């Protein structure tokens, strides 16, 4: 099976580990070979959390610079920081709601304009899908459902070989029961936001 490499970047606490877990379980359900790797440990200390998900027959669980086919960023500056993972054919999906790191408040570094981030990413990759996913998550009922909004958008691009139905079934079976409806709604909002 052709290999598809996906990188997800987020700020610790934004819930990207659940996104990769749901994608992995959905792939298992659909019989799609999948391998992932994550760097844990500092996730709750406000650092960057990066997940690599490899679909297909490759054995590596790590994605080298320049080799991600899809990049999903939960935060605009983190999307731009992860651009080195991309190639000219990469599809990029990014949330546009910034979470400026505390170093900015300390006067160490400045946060670039979100428009500039979009321009840079769009100019270097095949497709950029950029929107305020946090707003859609709020609309679904919980700003923490940001991960499901972005998952919906990702599925709509057709760039990952996992069927939509398998993802929805996994959201039902493996996310906390109190949040299932919100999660499904957030997933649907993200899905509907993107044109195929």
């Amino acid at each position, binding site marked *: 099976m052709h290999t598809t490499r996906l990188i997800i970047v987020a*700020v*610790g606490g934004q819930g990207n580990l659940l996104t*990769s*877990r749901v994608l*992995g*379980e959905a792939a*298992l359900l659909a019989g799609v*070979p*999948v*391998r*992932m*790797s*994550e*760097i*844990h*440990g*500092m996730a*709750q*200390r*406000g*650092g*960057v959390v990066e997940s690599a998900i490899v679909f297909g*027959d*490759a*054995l*590596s*669980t*790590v*994605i*080298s*610079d*320049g*080799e991600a086919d899809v990049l999903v960023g939960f935060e605009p*500056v*983190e999307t*731009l*920081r992860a*651009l*080195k993972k*991309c*190639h*000219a054919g990469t599809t990029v999906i990014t949330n546009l709601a910034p979470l*400026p*790191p*505390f*170093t*900015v*408040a*300390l006067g*160490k*570094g*400045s*946060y*670039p304009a979100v428009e*500039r981030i979009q321009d*840079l990413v769009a100019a*270097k*990759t095949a497709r950029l899908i950029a929107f305020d996913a946090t707003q859609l998550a709020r609309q679904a009922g919980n700003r923490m459902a940001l991960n499901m909004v972005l998952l919906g958008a990702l599925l709509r691009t057709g760039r990952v070989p996992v069927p939509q139905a398998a993802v929805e079934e996994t959201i039902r079976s493996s996310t906390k029961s109190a949040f299932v409806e919100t999660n499904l709604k957030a997933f649907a909002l993200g899905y509907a936001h993107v044109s195929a």
Partner: protein
Amino acid sequence: MHRLLIDQPGAKRLLLGNEAIARGAVEAGVAVAATYPGTPSSEIALNLFQISRETDRYFEYSTNEKVALEVTAAAANAGLRSLCLMKHVGLNVAADALMTLAYVGTRGGLVILTADDPAMFSSQNEQDNRYYAKLAGLPMLEPSSVAEALAMVPAAFDLSEKLHAPVLLRTTTRVNHSTAVVELGPIRTPVTAGYFKKDPFSFVTVPAVSRQLHVRLLERLEEAGRLAEASPFNFEAGDGRLGVVCNGVSYGYVHDALEDLQAGGRVRLLRLGFTHPLPEERIRRFLAACDKVLVVEEGEPFMEEAIRAIAQAAALTLPIRGKGAGLFSRLYEYDPAMVRRVMAAYFALPQRPAPALDLSDVPALPQRPPTLCAGCSHRATFYAVKKATEGLDVIHPSDIGCYTLGFLPPLSMGDFVICMGASIGSACGFSRASRQKVVAFIGDSTFFHSGMPGLVNAVFNNHNLTLVILDNRTTAMTGHQPNPGVDMAELQLEGFNRVDIEGVVKALGVAHVSVIRPYNVKKSIAALREAIAFPGVSVVISREKCTLYARGLRQLHGRAFTVTDKCRNHRECVDALACPAFYLEGDRVRIDADICVGCALCAQVCPEHAIQPLRQE
């Protein structure tokens, strides 16, 4: 029932590497397991701890890795399958026990898992623990994948029981923290009641006994070598005159590179999973079939040097390379593109790498380093120490935990960190070598782990230092594991005792002991000033629960704070505390109410008292 206890052989599950290893322990019928938590091994223990609560399998968080190894060594010698888990540097702590345990051997199966951390994602060094197998003379297995990690646990126990030797199972972060689909195997019912059959001439290592035991150790190693020759964990693939020898996660990268380079027909592969002792005969045959060999292994040239020695003994003169200019590095971790590039260059294979993106116009981005959480009690303690030592020239030896992050500005509390417990020992040395003041930091779990001998030393030798024990009531960094100071009843866990740090410190003979609540800034500064002025050893225990832990226990009741109109933009709050709840709106400081936990530290720091609790709507 715990998800790793489900008895459905053949079922497929998506598991984290560390979950797969815990499942492997279940399938192997492990009766006793012990650890001191450390990334990247921690989730194995977390699962085994949960499993121990609902079965008769025993698990414990030991005070340190040496104790954990002693616990499991005894259990194994009473006949029980026992598993000892630690991160790579933990094996340094356990090394004293390990070296002579290798002489003594085991009666029941004993597997020691060492989780190495190439690239130091969360460690103070990237030492290659494969050398411990060589140093101690122990058999070692190394998995390449999550599924193989599961399979190697029962195999390691079989090997241990066959050889009567402890077996090292060496993983790396990219196995521990990868996730993949595994097929569950059958569960062996654990034997949980052991019996220790006395045999002092095998177990009591006085010199006369050890001289005999060393002979037996070498005999076991020879037998292990024979088993390595036949082990299915050492296998070959492909053919051709170009040879690659690899281990661990590098195997996946080599496998993918061979696909990408379409070089399967030209390259012969030897994957080693039973890596000590190495299967010398098998390697000799492999070398004889090759014109040129590349060794792909992260870390040190462990296999490369051994393979060169094997070639020399067999009078084989083919080029064998691994580490070196234009080839692989001894630094950090490898990745698929790096392995592909080196293989293509070394073997002169054609490759068409996609052009890298030109990122020269991307501006410098603000850094997002890990930091102490909003409301972290360590921040409050560090601030108080900073205030209490204003105007003094102070050295701050620190230790291993979340609080190590305090070394970053603006707190800048941390000048010397090498290993668990070293804050106190190094404080003793600094206080003798220099006239600078010494105020050291250690966490509660680290204090129990290896801080106490240092403190006894400080008292006995009458050093002049202040030790601040950051008692946040849990082992926070690695995910809130219990330690001897934790109130287990709060976690609804019975059958434990609690060791009181204040009582211990006093009993160790420290003459000046005080306890502060760090969110009370003024009182804390006063108590610290007094302790620092005390000639001799003084200890200040800063007691406040880890914010994340308190939240998990539903004990976090603070209200978020806000910056009111009284603010004159001094920015003392941001500049002195660097709490991640602050952000700038234009040039005004704001507090993110979603992040603020209401610790009120900044409210006490603000010269205008402009930071107030947020009114609830």
